[in-house]
């Protein structure tokens, strides 16, 4: 399961945000925060698990979810790298526009 695909969905993104705030939550506690059915939330949690965005631990009867920091960091790194690449393109574009301006003068 692709991590970018998994995090692109608004419901799954909200689950990630909730876990980022709360730390550790059971599937039931996560589900309580949504109006959609428990099976629907379970399906989203399954996608998040398969994409390694969340980890699950069994605590008696409960399945406790928390974020997988490694995957989160990986996604964050991607965003930073995209940002760096665009910064470089922008610097080159800036330089090109300046040359164009000087030619007009």
């Amino acid at each position, binding site marked *: 399961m692709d991590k*970018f695909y998994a995090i692109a969905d608004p419901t799954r993104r909200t689950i990630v945000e909730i876990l980022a705030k709360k730390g550790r939550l059971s599937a039931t506690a996560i589900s309580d925060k949504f109006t959609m059915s428990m099976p629907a939330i379970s399906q989203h949690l399954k996608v998040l698990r398969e994409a390694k965005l969340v980890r699950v631990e069994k605590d008696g009867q409960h399945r406790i979810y928390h974020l997988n920091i490694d995957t989160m960091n990986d996604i964050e790194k991607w965003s930073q790298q995209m940002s760096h690449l665009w910064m470089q393109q922008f610097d080159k574009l800036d330089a090109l526009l300046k040359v164009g301006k000087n030619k007009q003068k």
Partner: protein
Amino acid sequence: MEPKGQFTTERVFDAPLSTVWSVWTDPEMLKQWWGPHNVSIPECEVDLQVGGKFYIVMKAGEAMGPYAGTLWPMMATFTAVEPEATLAYDAEAWTEGQKETTTINQTTEITFAEKDGKTVVNINAVIHTAGSDAGMAVQGMEAGFNQQLDKLNEFLSEQK
């Protein structure tokens, strides 16, 4: 802030909107600035209409060390073209010869607006999927950038 596989940024260019739009949509101009430092653009095609193709190939330069000569093509289809206002495309980018494992699918939306004779550009890029080895290509491109930063830092410290 939570990582979202998404990137947004804004940049103001000291040039008229019409100029910025044309350097962004004319293949000959794109060749002069597209891509990170230390890459050249051997190929670029732009069919500026919704459904039209946007094809650009980056080639790693000598300064990229082990990556030198690597080709990074991007094949995109325009989903929005509003002259001097909006450009959007769905793109597939990969490392030549390793398309299976390096393909990145992404959507990019760029908006242009004039402000006090300058041009404000906003970029919103979302990664949808990324192949298992796609990170390597991005790192390779970034290697060029880091070298550039090192040089800049060196230069700045010499000025002190």
